[in-house]
């Protein structure tokens, strides 16, 4: 590789003329822009409800569909960032706001909000009346709800962990709130933000089918895209369609990973707060390409100046002075009023929800749904255990070999984006042919959405084990089971817990996809809360959707408090390495 770089080290000798790299970059950027503008135009074309949008299994249409899907994903991502920057900042700066926002986000990120979305669709359609933008906005909103929560949480947590001295320095040098946001808050949270954005992009592919077909007034609007293509392929039992989808996804994920996330990750290395310099920095080819071109470099300088101007926008002529306020008793009583009103509001809405459910449904059904929740919880925990048993040895092996880790990471990331739906044909055919039990054999589909979080974290945990601990154990001849029990398992425990908590959050979400499996005209349904919610959503049965979601939230909250939070605290206090 080094010779490849060296060939271009003479680049400083010609500075004025654009070079070949410029041409490539120029064509490339223009092409991308044109494609997105075209897709944007299509997506805002006139549209009336009832009109069906053309969708076919012809693979030649797939590039177009992919373009639509990607545009939706990125628009949703832009809104996710906007939401994160406003709501996350509000939560971090205002304790009272945080006391509502954070628990809400906590619940929203582990229940399949997509089930509740049909309510919002009418609103979007009314907002963009007579335009395809209405359903498009609804689809983007659905993707947004699958992406946003963990990004906002990560931003909030980063803001809360900014070292006091940095905050004091910002105060001391009179940075305005705006300057402080761009100079301190955003850069400090950048690594976590980026990592969570990548996770969210993977996560939003999983719900692609659900977000690209929208039901309103008892009819379904299907928006052209990769997800709806896959949905069509599944309902027509077209194996080739599924394969084409996988191929398209592979190319699209590869493209945005290489063009966007690799360079961003590279760039974000300067934001890591550790004050040690890294001896080895891997570079992505797109960074290298950008460094070769003059026009882009010039553009870069232009954007640098622009960014500088944005950071230093002043909203008022004089420099605002921060005034320290003393805690007064008024302040205190305001707090009391605030918390009382929140408690009141929460109790009232809980009561309303219960009332709504009880009017329509019998208490017998509630007990039944509780039982369904129990079954689903059992399924998720089993899957987590299986995934751990399988992936811990593999993850440790990969983590110990840095070179393997480097190329496994992107592959695992691609696999994490895999919607469970693409495996439906395999599962349905196997179950039918061998007369398998659907209750048990639909469960492995859950692995698709959950195992990767465990694998990622185990690789990271093993790689983070201090070299001297490994050396000490081999020096004392620690081997075999003792090596696992004394060194590896305790060493990776905190990472395993983190991975498991994420996986379980994703697992609850996934159950609405994996407990009802269809292929062509065959539909197999397992017993469980996910199937209950999925069916009620399809039928537009709101009381049942509400009950299902409430039950899922309850399970998530109770399990978090009784099992995962204590384990997490144990991991942080006893097994932390520093």
């Amino acid at each position, binding site marked *: 590789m080094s010779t490849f770089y060296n060939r271009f080290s003479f680049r400083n000798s010609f500075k004025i003329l654009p070079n070949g790299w410029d041409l490539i970059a120029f064509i490339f950027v223009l092409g991308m822009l044109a494609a997105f503008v075209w897709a944007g135009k299509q997506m805002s074309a006139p549209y009336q409800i009832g009109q069906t949008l053309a969708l076919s299994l012809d693979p030649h249409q797939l590039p177009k569909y992919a373009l639509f899907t990607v545009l939706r994903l990125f628009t949703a991502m832009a809104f996710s960032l906007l939401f994160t920057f406003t709501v996350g900042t509000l939560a971090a700066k205002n304790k009272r706001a945080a006391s509502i926002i954070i628990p809400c986000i906590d619940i929203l990120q582990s229940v399949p909000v997509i089930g509740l979305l049909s309510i919002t669709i009418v609103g979007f359609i009314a907002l963009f009346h007579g335009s395809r933008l209405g359903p498009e906005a609804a689809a983007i909103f659905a993707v947004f709800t699958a992406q946003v929560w963990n990004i906002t949480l990560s931003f909030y947590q980063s803001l809360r962990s900014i070292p006091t001295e940095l905050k004091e*320095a910002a105060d001391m*040098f009179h940075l305005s709130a705006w*300057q402080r946001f761009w100079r301190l808050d955003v850069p400090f949270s950048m690594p976590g933000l980026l990592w969570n954005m990548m996770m969210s992009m993977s996560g939003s592919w999983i719900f692609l089918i659900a977000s690209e077909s929208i039901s309103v007034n008892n009819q379904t609007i299907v928006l052209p895209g990769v997800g709806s293509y896959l949905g069509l392929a599944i309902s027509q039992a077209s194996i080739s369609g599924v394969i084409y989808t996988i191929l398209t996804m592979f190319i699209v994920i590869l493209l945005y990973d290489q063009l966007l996330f690799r360079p961003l990750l590279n760039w974000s290395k300067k934001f890591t707060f550790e004050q040690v310099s890294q001896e080895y920095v891997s570079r992505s080819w797109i960074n290298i390409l950008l460094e070769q071109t003059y026009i882009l470099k010039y553009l870069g300088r232009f954007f640098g100046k622009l960014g500088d101007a944005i950071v*230093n926008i002043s909203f008022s002529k004089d420099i605002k002075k921060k005034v320290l306020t003393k805690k007064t008793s008024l302040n205190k009583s305001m707090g009391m009023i605030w918390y009382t009103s929140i408690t009141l509001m929460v109790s009232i809405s809980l009561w309303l929800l219960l009332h709504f459910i009880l009017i329509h449904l019998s208490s017998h059904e509630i007990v039944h749904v509780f039982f369904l929740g129990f079954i689903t919880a059992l399924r998720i925990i089993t899957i987590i255990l299986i995934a751990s048993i399988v992936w811990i040895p593999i993850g440790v092996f990969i983590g110990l070999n840095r070179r393997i880790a480097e190329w496994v990471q992107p592959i695992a990331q691609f696999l994490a984006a895999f919607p469970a739906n693409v495996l439906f044909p395999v599962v349905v055919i196997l179950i039918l042919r061998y007369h398998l039990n659907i209750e048990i054999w639909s469960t492995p589909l859950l692995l698709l959405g959950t195992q990767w979080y465990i694998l990622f974290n185990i690789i990271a945990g093993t790689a983070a084990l201090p070299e001297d601990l490994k050396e000490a154990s081999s020096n004392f001849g620690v081997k075999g089971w003792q090596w696992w029990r004394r060194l590896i398992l305790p060493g990776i425990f905190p990472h395993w817990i983190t991975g498991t908590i994420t996986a379980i959050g994703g697992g609850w979400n996934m159950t609405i996809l994996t407990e009802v499996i269809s292929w062509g005209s065959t539909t197999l349904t397992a017993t469980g809360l996910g199937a209950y919610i999925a069916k009620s959503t399809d039928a537009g049965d709101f009381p049942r959707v509400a009950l299902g979601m409430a039950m899922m939230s309850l399970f998530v909250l109770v399990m978090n408090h009784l099992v995962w939070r204590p384990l997490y605290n144990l991991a942080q206090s006893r097994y932390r390495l520093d």
Partner: protein
Amino acid sequence: MNKKPIFTVKDISKSFKKAEQQELLVLDKVNFQLYEDEIVALLGKSGSGKSTLLRIISGLSNPSSGTVTYREQIVNGPVQGMAMVFQNFALLPWLTVLENVELGLEALRVPRDERRTRALKAIDIIGLDGFESAYPKELSGGMRQRVGFARALVINPDVLLMDEPFSALDVLTADNLKSDLLDLWEAKQTGTRGILFVTHNIEEAVLLANRVIVFDSDPGSIRAELTIDLPYPRTEQNPEFRKYVDQIYSLITRQMDERKKLLLKEQLPRITDIGYRLPDADISELTGLLETLDQVEYQGHVSLPELTESLHLDVDDLFPLTEVLDILGFAHVNNGELILTAAGKLFANADILERKKIFAAHLLRYVPLAKHIRQVLEERRTTGQRASRERFLNELEDYLSEKEAERVLRTVIDWGRYAELFAYANNTGMLSLENPN
């Protein structure tokens, strides 16, 4: 001489809330002024509230009562004209040296081009030429603190506040940076009219300051003021310099002696209370110090300045050790001298197991908290002689702040474990009499 004050600190008190009704007083009615053209050092043990005072003066935090007046205006938030240099530099790692230095100018709405010129000049003055485009993580500690200085000086502050600016640096780097700072100050290259800095290093205070304010702790208050009338550059070998250092040492030890007298008059919590604020001292450090005292060259007594010098210890590190030796009856402090007792001599000459026995006996006799814990455990014969850490923590919190209670309990558990008076399991938080397994 008619000196003009830059800022005036008047009756500043600060207390933190600990439990529901109790308040912990960290600063008690502090009064002083910083005049133009002087460097003042605030000298005191860590935890004496001097950093808190610095933050109140800078407007970063609020006093509970009292006022700070800066150039005829009352400080109630960060004011322009003051710049701060931080202990751990507080540089933004994602900005280059140049961008870091420009930060304060950006906030002052200085146009881009002027910003660059001024920042480059400050970088030049502080000796960072050639590092403009480097990121802080590429620099050594000393160079990073230079960036901290450049960032503070570029906004041309009226006053420079420094929070232990050299304590995170190694000795050579710190000396180098100090003399550069003094050169700048002497040459009047900046518009800075006064410097206030916080330190726990006596030599550092005498080296840099025109005036040293000695801080007393529990609660933080001004104990004494000393004008250092020596021309720059000062050297530590100069007898005059040594005289000032010795003077400050005896000021501080006198402070300890008086404290002891107060103890006898029962005006402060007595050592015999379980709520006595045991200082932090590590067993191996205590043992090491006793062994040093017993060495032939010292013959059982040594002056404190000599000791700090030969052991390369800060006052901050040394005083807790001498206090503990005093409490345990292994050594006494008298007129700035540390004197080994007979028990101390016995301990120094014993082997590992005997040492544990001696230590255990003294611990039970002189440290009521240790005795108390042992007694409680012995009384619990029926419940397996165990008690939770929380139990003692709650008891201590009647006397001490939550943080202090934790620290004191941690210290006494550490000593008790060494003396094999009781055992402690960290994951269950249980104290017990049984040995592990």
